[in-house]
């Protein structure tokens, strides 16, 4: 390609890449009427063909939600949400059982394509045989507006004994497992949003890794919020039995739209003896336009419990999207010698607000936790790290190390650090350090003198700043995340 036209193309791309993945797919939808009441909860349960116990479980959650108040303690501002002015159920109209991929709505396939998902799973969806052998295996449970449309690699997983399916299917097919674990890590009435989620969740993923099984591939789910005015209430439950190992990836992009959308997901992880769960997220939902209008409200409750001795749960997240992020992936370290980890990069630009962090609750002896949180604020955004480290009396020799670093780009943004440190055991050791600074002029100058544009230089420095977290991500995610960081910060310098 001649240099000139290439340049022109690049410029055009840059100019339009405020939100690269802002598009809307036109797929026929089956939508419940607006509003939330017991009838809607019953309707969702009926549409999902759920057993009676599940309906009762939802109704119990709904009743406690009605009595709860929306939490307002976080450092974010948003207009009141009218919970009655939203659809709580939206499902792409499916022809019964798209067994052959020709039957899959071509619009849907095109959506995946536009997402730029680094997936050969698309080929799998398109029915290309043998594609699964050639590359690193990744199983995808694609959540397309609240309903898992396709799940790949199921057979290969089933061979290993791993169950990976939409949670609605698990409720029908594996009720004993779901009943045993659902709501045990995040109780229905844990907070306002978990109660709401418990009442109306439509789908999500369910993963069960049996004893001694190392899950043969990375499991991943792509979320999309697509229909206008549908809240997305995902519910994910991952169980790793004794000595089981699983790595789960979650990536999110959402189409551009005007009205704010609410997303209140709940993720529960259960790790038994010597089990290990790694949960990685790249979140890039629509952050709102340059004035901060629109954009997703991301109010998420993620929590894992290390139930067995020496269990390990690791959360890694790259948060670049959403108008508001309110999210604290946590670890309850109940097994002796269990380990909790939290690696986070949160980028806010324009009018985005993020209040995110983690909780490490040390209940047992010899438990260890590590928190590395990197926060980057630009534009007129506000970003807060809020975290809790608690050493309970039984947490003998508990260890925690926390590092929170904030980078400010521009003088209109804010970066805040609010750690809570509570220790009730003298042998436990907690260390916390936090810094806030701006991009060093020296580093910028150095990069500029090597011929980088200011924007490239900032991207480079920011990627360096986040390196400790990015290196925790699975390979394909790490690449995507680096690109995301760069895009998120566009227009923040110069």
């Amino acid at each position, binding site marked *: 390609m001649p240099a000139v036209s290439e340049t022109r193309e690049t410029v055009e791309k840059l100019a339009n890449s405020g939100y690269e993945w802002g598009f809307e797919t036109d797929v026929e939808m089956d939508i419940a009427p607006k509003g939330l009441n017991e009838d809607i909860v019953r309707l969702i349960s009926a549409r999902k063909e759920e057993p009676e116990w599940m309906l009762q479980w939802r109704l119990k959650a709904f009743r406690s939600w009605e009595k709860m108040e929306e939490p307002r*303690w976080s450092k974010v501002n948003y207009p009141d949400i009218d919970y009655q002015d939203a659809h709580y159920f939206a499902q792409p109209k499916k022809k019964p059982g798209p067994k052959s991929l020709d039957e899959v709505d071509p619009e849907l396939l095109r959506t995946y394509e536009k997402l730029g998902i680094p997936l050969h799973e698309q080929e799998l969806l398109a029915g290309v045989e043998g594609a699964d052998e050639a590359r690193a295996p990744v199983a995808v449970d694609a959540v397309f507006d609240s309903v898992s449309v396709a799940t790949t690699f199921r057979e290969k997983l089933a061979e290993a004994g791993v169950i990976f399916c939409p949670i609605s299917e698990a409720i029908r097919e594996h009720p004993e497992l779901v009943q045993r674990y659902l709501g045990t890590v995040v109780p229905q009435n844990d907070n306002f949003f978990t109660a709401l989620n418990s009442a109306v969740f439509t789908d999500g993923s369910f993963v069960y890794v049996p004893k001694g099984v190392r899950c043969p591939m990375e499991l991943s789910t792509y979320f999309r919020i697509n229909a206008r005015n549908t809240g997305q209430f995902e519910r994910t439950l991952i169980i790793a039995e004794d000595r089981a190992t699983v790595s789960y990836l979650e990536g999110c992009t959402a189409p551009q739209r005007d009205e704010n959308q609410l997303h209140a997901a709940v993720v529960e992880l259960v790790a038994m003896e010597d089990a290990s769960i790694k949960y990685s997220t790249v979140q890039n939902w629509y952050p709102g336009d340059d004035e901060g209008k629109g954009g997703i409200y991301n109010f998420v409750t993620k929590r894992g419990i290390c139930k067995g001795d020496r269990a390990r749960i690791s959360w890694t997240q790259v948060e670049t999207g959403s108008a508001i992020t309110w999210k604290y992936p946590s670890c309850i370290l109940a097994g002796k010698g269990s380990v909790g980890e939290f690696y986070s990069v949160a980028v806010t630009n324009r009018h985005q607000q993020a209040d995110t962090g983690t909780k490490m609750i040390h209940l047992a002896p010899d438990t260890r936790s590590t928190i590395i949180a990197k926060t980057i604020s630009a534009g007129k955004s506000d970003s807060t790290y809020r975290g809790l480290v608690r*050493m309970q*009396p039984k947490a003998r020799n508990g260890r925690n190390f926390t590092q929170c670093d*904030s980078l*400010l*780009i*521009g*003088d*209109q*943004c*804010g*970066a*805040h*650090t*609010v*750690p*809570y*440190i*509570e*220790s*009730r*055991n*003298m*042998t*436990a*050791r*907690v*260390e*916390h*350090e*936090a*810094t*806030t*600074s*701006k991009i060093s002029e020296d580093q910028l100058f150095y990069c500029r003198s090597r011929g980088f544009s200011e924007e490239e230089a900032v991207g480079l420095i920011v990627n360096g700043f986040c390196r400790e977290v990015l290196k925790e991500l699975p390979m394909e995610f790490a690449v995507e995340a680096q690109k995301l960081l760069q895009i998120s910060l566009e227009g923040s310098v110069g």
Partner: protein
Amino acid sequence: MSETTQKAWTAFTERAGTRAALLGTQELPTRRVEAWHYTSLQPLNGVAWRTPERLSSARLTALLKPLALPEADGCVVFGNGYEDTDYTKLPASVMREKLDGHVPSEDAALKGRFSAQLNGALRQDGLHLRVPAGVDGGLVVLASVCDGQDVSVHLHHSIVLEEGASLTLLDVQGGEGRYLANPLFDVRCAKGAHFRHVKRQAESKEAFHLGIVSAHSEEHGNYNSFTLNQGGALARHEVVSTLQGPHANSTVNAVQLVDGARLNDLTSLIHHAAPDCTSRQTVRSVLSDAAQGVFQGKILVDQIAQKTDGYQMNQALLLSEKAQINSKPELEIYADDVKCSHGATVGALDEEQLFYLRSRGIPEEQARILLINAFLREAVEMLDDEGLQTYLLRSFPGHE
């Protein structure tokens, strides 16, 4: 006393004797209030607080004795909230002001802070000093003691330092039995003024202490404080230091030394409201038995406060299975060209250090005391006044 204060005071005295009399007109903050999440004020509720009466001079002398006040250029003593003028001595260069009927102007920095609201409602006249421009007021000792029996004392003090003035205040609190001490300090440091505020909170082990300081520093002004928090069943020392002129700086250091089943709390806000200011904070807590320590320290940097340099360190040593620490170091930053950091550590005495000392023939108990003192001394030694250091170190373990 003004009519409004009088009214509040009257309301209090009229209700005295009934349950929650003092605080009936004020809602006691619950744990749901973020600022009081770790320190519950509910124990204040069960006491029939009452107006104190003046202490006899013999009683006052007895209460002052254990505080072993050092020699100084000036001295003012309050017993149960009443000044005993027999002790009063002030350097000629320092002006004493009476506030008769004067209501202090609204201080935005204290808005919504319970200790300040309580003092505002039940205010008693305290010490009001003014140090004229360029004058060094030397060392003034302010002692305030209370004698139990459920009295509540709400002294309101103010210290005004004019341009280039300086003063050191040794502020000592003590007493016997159960009482509530709720002193408030209003500090103004004009351009280039230096105020050193050394506080020793040595209230009785049954007492409640809710002390609060609001300090405003102008250009190149300096509020430098050190607090030894060691008494009280429940004691909070709260500092709001506002840096409102360029190049102002502030140090808010503290040591908390708590035993029994008592709770000591240090809460501070260092507010950078102007560019080029510097703040430093080192807080060390040593908690034994079933003691609870609380540290809540916030650095707030306004958008205008570019080139801020803020540093905060808080460390806690837990000496027993039942001791606990709750700590919340907080940064809230709206300016980009800043250098702010904080660090926090919690842990027990270092076994290796103990082993080293024991292997040199030092008995375990003595080795522990050595290590604890070394930990605390680092914070005390930041106070560049040997006399005051010696005075404070006397109340550390092994010095009794």
